[in-house]
């Protein structure tokens, strides 16, 4: 570890936190119904869209109506993307003559992008036409981020409702997040990216003669526009197979830092928005401190582990210094570590370093972050997971202060616990069961390139990434088989929608409860001590579940490397 690296990591986090506060305030004003200064710009556009689509913007929905619209839109977009991938060979904007995708890969890819996972069982530059990149990938990168975001907003409204079932209008929220947040931000960021050297073109791959006289094909395309929403929407699916390690996606340390900031912006801002919705900024502060703390600890564990290098390599080959396998020289260990921590904490899944080549501890942290799934988390759904853990923490500690537990004045009863438990249960279920199935079937084991302990890590990582809707991969697993395309596809769907539906059902029941006024007997959740309890619940309930599986994967590898 170097001083410069440490300062770089800390400075980036500070910038993220400073930007998240105004961003969070802006999001609150847009979605709480306040008028904003930009209304005169956006209103005409939005009203036009409402008229065009026949939306009555003033009508309100209860949780069932809201989620029905949300699921319906998602289903239609899923089918749309699937058809594009299946038919891309015969559709326009295909200068490189790329073939249509087989059914299983098209299913996996469409599911992957509608669920904001962006797991890629294909190499973008070889398997997707520009039409697919734009209408399939980039389009879903906007809408899937929007879906997660509006789900969180609707939940927040339910949380502050006093005996009212109305939680907003899905269509209005869904349009507003595009017109007022995602489109303007992505446009600006894409232009900045172009300025920093990312390509943005519809021309096919360039064929160049190299100095040695050979012919080289250099893939390119509408990269900058995809890259912007890939990060802003915590998507992570790259244009190229190498993702942000590719020089056209992430040419310099500066773009890498920008990408980290872009992926962190909205998940961190939502904490401020949350604090404003519940009119308790202290609550937001407590969450900021604890979540940032975990992010920093994790990042520095990766950094120190990577910087310490590999003793076996030192012993066998006499190579000392940091572990540079799978890392880009232009980023170095510090920036690679931060990117790895951030992309799994914010469940983006973009990578600028190969996670498969990380040291065991360096690879353990991204896996842990995805198993927690609450270190800020993905756009919107991260906040929903935070709320789920808050509810369980409040339940346990509420009992310990001798009252029926309340969260922000609302009683937590059997129905809420039932739904929170379902949301809690689904994550280990869809990680561990598919991992076990994969490890005992031939279809599951034959695509593993590194057998042994590391093979377990690879499969475990894949299903964790799919379940957390992250999308980053330990390479070393050939995922493009019918088995993995289907298994990962189903895991992504369950990981995304079961918890959203469970949390929405909870929102429906919370919305209609009356808010009990606070007294000294009320358990306050905006204290340092409660923050500690929250963290303990996340660690003990959330992560210890995976301790046995991790101990035969990265933990065993770690001991093997250092003392074995």
């Amino acid at each position, binding site marked *: 570890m170097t001083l410069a690296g440490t300062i770089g990591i800390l400075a980036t986090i500070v910038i993220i936190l400073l930007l998240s506060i105004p961003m969070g305030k802006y999001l609150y004003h847009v979605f709480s119904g306040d008028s904003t200064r930009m209304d005169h710009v956006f209103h005409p556009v939005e009203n036009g869209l409402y008229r065009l689509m026949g939306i009555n913007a003033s009508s309100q929905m209860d949780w069932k109506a809201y989620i029905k619209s949300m699921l319906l839109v998602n289903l239609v977009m899923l089918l749309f993307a699937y058809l594009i991938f299946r038919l891309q060979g015969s559709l326009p904007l295909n200068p490189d003559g790329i073939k249509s995708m087989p059914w299983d890969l098209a299913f996996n890819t469409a599911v992957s992008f509608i669920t904001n996972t962006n797991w890629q069982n294909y190499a973008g530059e070889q398997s997707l036409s520009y039409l697919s990149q734009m209408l399939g990938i980039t389009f879903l990168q906007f809408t899937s981020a929007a879906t997660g975001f509006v789900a969180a907003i609707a939940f927040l409204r339910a949380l502050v409702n006093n005996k009212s079932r109305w939680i907003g209008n899905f269509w209005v929220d869904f349009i507003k997040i595009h017109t007022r947040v995602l489109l303007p931000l992505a446009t600006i960021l894409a232009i900045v990216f172009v300025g920093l050297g990312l390509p943005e073109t519809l021309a096919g791959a360039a064929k160049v003669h190299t100095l040695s006289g050979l012919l080289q094909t250099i893939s390119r395309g509408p990269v900058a526009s995809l890259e912007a929403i890939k990060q802003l929407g915590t998507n992570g699916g790259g244009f190229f197979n190498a993702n942000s390690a590719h020089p056209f996606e992430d040419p310099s340390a500066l773009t890498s830092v920008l990408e980290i900031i872009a992926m962190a912006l909205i998940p961190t801002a939502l904490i401020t928005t949350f604090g404003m919705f519940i009119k308790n900024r202290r609550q937001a502060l407590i969450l900021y401190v604890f979540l940032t703390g975990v992010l920093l600890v994790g990042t520095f564990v990766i950094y120190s582990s990577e910087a310490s290098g590999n003793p076996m390599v030192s012993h066998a080959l006499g190579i000392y210094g940091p572990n540079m396998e799978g890392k880009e020289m232009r980023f170095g260990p510090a920036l690679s570590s931060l990117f790895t921590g951030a992309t799994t904490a914010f469940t983006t899944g973009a990578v600028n370093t190969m996670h498969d080549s990380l040291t065991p501890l360096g690879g353990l942290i991204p896996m842990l972050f995805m198993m927690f799934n609450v270190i800020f988390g993905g756009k919107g759904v991260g906040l929903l997971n935070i709320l789920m853990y808050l509810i369980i923490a409040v339940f346990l500690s509420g009992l*310990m202060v*001798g*009252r029926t537990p309340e969260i922000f004045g609302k009683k937590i009863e059997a129905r809420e616990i039932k739904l929170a*438990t379902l949301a809690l249960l689904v994550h280990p279920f869809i990680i*561990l069961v598919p991992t076990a199935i994969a490890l005992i079937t031939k279809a599951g084991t034959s695509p593993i390139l590194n057998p042994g302990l590391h093979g377990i890590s690879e499969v475990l990582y894949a299903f964790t990434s799919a379940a957390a809707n992250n999308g980053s991969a330990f390479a070393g697993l050939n995922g493009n088989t019918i088995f993995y395309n289907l298994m990962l596809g189903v895991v992504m769907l369950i990981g995304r929608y079961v918890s959203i539906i469970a949390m929405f059902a909870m929102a429906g029941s919370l919305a209609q409860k009356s808010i009990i006024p606070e007294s000294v007997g009320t358990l306050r959740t905006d204290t340092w001590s409660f923050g500690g309890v929250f963290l*303990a619940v996340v660690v003990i309930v959330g992560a210890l579940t995976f301790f046995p599986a991790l101990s035969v994967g990265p933990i065993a590898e770690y001991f093997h490397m250092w003392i*074995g």
Partner: protein
Amino acid sequence: MAISAKKSMTGDIVRGAILASLTKMDPRIMIKNPVMFVVEIGFVITLVLTFFPDVFGGKYGPNEWIFNLIVTVVLFITVVFGNFAEAIAEGRGKAQAEALRKTKTDLTAQRSKTDGTYEIVAASMLKKGDIVRVEALQMIPVDGEVLQGLGSVDESAITGESAPVIRGAGGDFSSVTGGTKLLSDELIIKATVDPGESFLDKMIGLVEGASRQKTPNELALSVLLAGLTMIFLIVVITLEPLAHYVNGSIDVATLIALLVCLIPTTIGALLSAIGIAGMDRVIRFNVIAKSGKAVEAAGDVNTLILDKTGTITIGNRLASEFVPVGKHQREELVEVAVMSSLFDETPEGRSIITLGKELGVTKERESYHDAENIEFSADTRMSGMDLADGTVYRKGAVDAIKKFVNSRGGQIYPDLDEKTDRIAREGGTPLAVVKSSELFGLIYLKDIVKPGMRERFDELRKMGIKTVMCTGDNPLTAATIALEAGVDNFIAEAKPEDKMRLIKEEQALGKLVAMSGDGTNDAPALAQADVGLAMNTGTAAAKEAGNMVDLDSDPTKLIEVVSIGKQLLITRGAITTFSIANDVAKYFAIIPAMFASVVPELRALNIMFLTNSKSAILSALIFNALIIPFLIPLAMRGVKYRPMSATSLLMRNIFIYGFGGVITPFVGIKVIDIIITWLGVAHL
């Protein structure tokens, strides 16, 4: 009953509980407790593995069955411990119910026939509306309302209180309970319940736990525990494939041991015992809660509505000060006041004598045996004493005394009115005192706040509970008492409707309201309140409307009930936290042991330095079983509750049960490992 209930565990109860903990192993009963049901299934599987170690395939050494047998025995003990906890809690109730049943049997009644004569029938034949006659020293056969007569009743069978109470026709003291004994006079009673519905029957049902339903919080917690059990089931089931991939295998008994260690068996085993014991604690406070839900609701109460008279104040006005008027000194006034009250047997009169004694004035009745006692009458509104020598002592309402003095040509001092007003303004009652025609001054009678009330209200405030005092007094008087007692708010000149309105207003704000009451006109409010504590001395309507009945008729018991409600939740929360926190140490014991052959590097995780794999797994499992009986006393008694802010309470309990829950098993497992190694079990 209450007296017998205070004896805790007797030999009979323990013997009964041991038997019950075996019969409760019936899977049809066990399935109601999913956590322990999983343990039972584990027990059955390891039992099979003891005799057929290779029933699930795999290669096993010749001594594998010994390990499996030990696991089987420990699992069996775990289940038995859990059942034992529940049976012990139930056993105490059963013993009380037995005592009550004895009271009930063999009761006979004199039932009125249409011709006005009485026939002897068994009490169990009495129906609602039957008229019965009860003579002195007979048992009252049925719950009812007194139609005629007035008599003293020994209710100790129900309340444990030996002092008899007065029951009579009309008013708020007309309700009698079957199974109590009439000590004097004769009562004509109309039965108000049908057979099987009497108060005694309900009590038997309650203490036996027959009508026990899971309370809302208990239900929510059970769901969470079942969810955690599911999660750990997934964790354990998926382990074998992982080991299999790296060419290892984990035997089924070890997997079951890990599962049982991880699922929250501690709280699973104690959960229902905590609930039953909580209800039992309420009963031992001589409060009958009609449901566990009411006790839980008591813990959540935000607002407590209390009547002033009899609850906050003693109920009688007592002398607190002597205020002389005109040229008179206090000493003179005290002397006259004491003389005027010498034969006064009312509490007010006694209090004047007592206060006089404190100020050094003592008079003996014997010295004035020839004096004539003048009783208070509504007509004169004065009382006092006429001495043989013609001296008259009088005390009474100020205007009545003024008239008395005027009629005798005495002088009214100018400061009298001013001082009278001051006392009235402060909420007191002024009594003027006169000797012959000379007015000496005033006695300040005051509503006395019961000792300790202020501290109790402070405690309530620390719990976050607001107290509201209800009184028929004028606002001025009410404000004085409110200030003195330290309540947060009061309603003066309150009518029963006002109480109802207050409850509804508070509930509209989302608050939970508790109140106590005894009169029929309290019934609607008792029914509306979330926690309605009816006094046993109260009317049948009030007792029906409330969700708790206080057998001692002490309205301040609401405060105890609130504490018990909170304690119930805290105990559940604390043991759940302890149970979950235990998992950390158990992981460190079992994981390295389990993968010892597959991934030998993991021995680095054996931070407790346990002897070997077998001893590690057994130690964790034995710890897991032993912690249950170890915590039974805590479950029965409840975690101590001290009023303090929620955050400090949380920190305190997190420290004890959270950190304690992480550290205890590290120590416990290590100790058990040392013992079983020493016994040679580790190397079988």
